């Protein structure tokens, strides 16, 4: 009989944790959601505020990147004009899988108050959207909540996913 009997099953027995591949990969993905810096209009101010020290997005693992190659989530913050629509599609296609999209504010959701010839009536006409965030502009807390909901969604996903269809302009 060993002098120090170790109960492996009990917590604190040994530094061993049992998990599934899905869980540990999604744990990593959901807690380091690097966002593409994508401010298009006034909503971008709130997005910047969320990134700054008071609301401190870094503690969710959301770090804004300037390149779509390094980004996991695209936060479409603002009014998408028709002239810009092709570029949002191009940037979306340049992001590496897996990727998610948060549509922030009424303008990105539905065109908002810009019911005019020059505004795309909702970014979901151009790219697939995971989360719609209402408000004009949504407060930073709302954006944080959206990111937390997105994390929840990611944790439920399987790591083996079909690739979304690409179409480069």
């Amino acid at each position, binding site marked *: 009989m060993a002098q120090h009997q170790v109960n492996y099953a009990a917590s604190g027995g040994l530094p061993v944790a049992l998990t599934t591949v899905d869980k540990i990969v999604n744990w990593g993905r959901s807690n380091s959601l690097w966002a593409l810096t994508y401010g298009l209009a006034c909503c971008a101010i709130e997005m910047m505020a969320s990134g700054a020290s008071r609301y401190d997005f870094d503690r969710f693992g959301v770090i804004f990147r300037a390149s779509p190659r390094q980004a996991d989530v695209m936060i479409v913050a603002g009014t998408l004009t*028709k*002239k810009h*629509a*092709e570029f949002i*599609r191009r940037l979306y296609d340049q992001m590496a899988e897996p990727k998610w999209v948060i549509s922030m504010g009424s303008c990105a959701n*539905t*065109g908002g108050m810009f*019911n*005019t*010839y*020059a505004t*795309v*009536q*909702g970014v979901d*006409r*151009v790219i697939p959207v995971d989360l719609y965030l209402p408000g004009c502009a949504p407060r930073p807390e709302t954006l944080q909540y959206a990111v937390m909901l997105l994390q929840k969604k990611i944790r439920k996903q399987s790591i083996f996913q079909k690739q979304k269809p690409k*179409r480069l*302009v």
Partner: protein
Amino acid sequence: MMRPYRPKDNVQKKAYYTDRFWIAPRIPEEDVSQDKVYAADIEKIKAKFDIKKAYIQRGQLVVIIDPVINKELLFFLRDELGYDMLMELSAIDYLAQDGEFEVFYQLLSLSKRKRLRVKCRIKEDEAIESVNPVFRSADWSEREMYDMFGIKVNNHPYFKRILMPDDWVGYPLRKTYPLHGDEAAQWYEIDKIFGKEYREIVGPEIRDAAWIDKTDTEQFARYGHEVPKGAPYDSEPVKIDSFNEDAPLVETFDLKKSKIVDRDR
């Protein structure tokens, strides 16, 4: 001039557009001799150019000219008369009324502290000479004028659209252009990114802000009464038969029952 006062109580109850066809009163046109500086200026202009009309409106001199002399006149105004800034340049659509555009140049003289407006009228298919050699600020304004009204400008150094994309169809600031865009505008992003064959897949834009799909119980609650999410539209609504009326809405705070952490603080 002030706007006439209208009583504001109960203003919400009134129809919003009662004034829709209200026509602004004409601002009186005064004679140029009223102002000494302007009178002297117009003498010099008249000696050299053929002008159609000149008057003072709201303390500013307005000169109406033939469009062919626009560049020469602006050169003259800048060099001889000291109107050295072009504040604004654009056009007004009078196509429905007169079949013409009105192009205007708003000038400012810093030394005289006076403003002067040069106006001219051109037909829809006519082009106007660029005043870019006179004022560099005309560069983008003329491009915008072309972008929004479709007025062609001769001898412009870089003549293309400025705000709308290059392959845009139509000129948005014309009175005939629909606010929600013509067909090319409404499908612009779909045609450009996915191609025309995707129009059916994506579907038309939803321009009605109050639009709700009544039969969609996934995203909208059913009018009047709730059915469970995703249930068929015509299924029975959920009935709440009873609820405990005695249950307190807010539980009162009980010192004895509650555990207080860190009491010393």
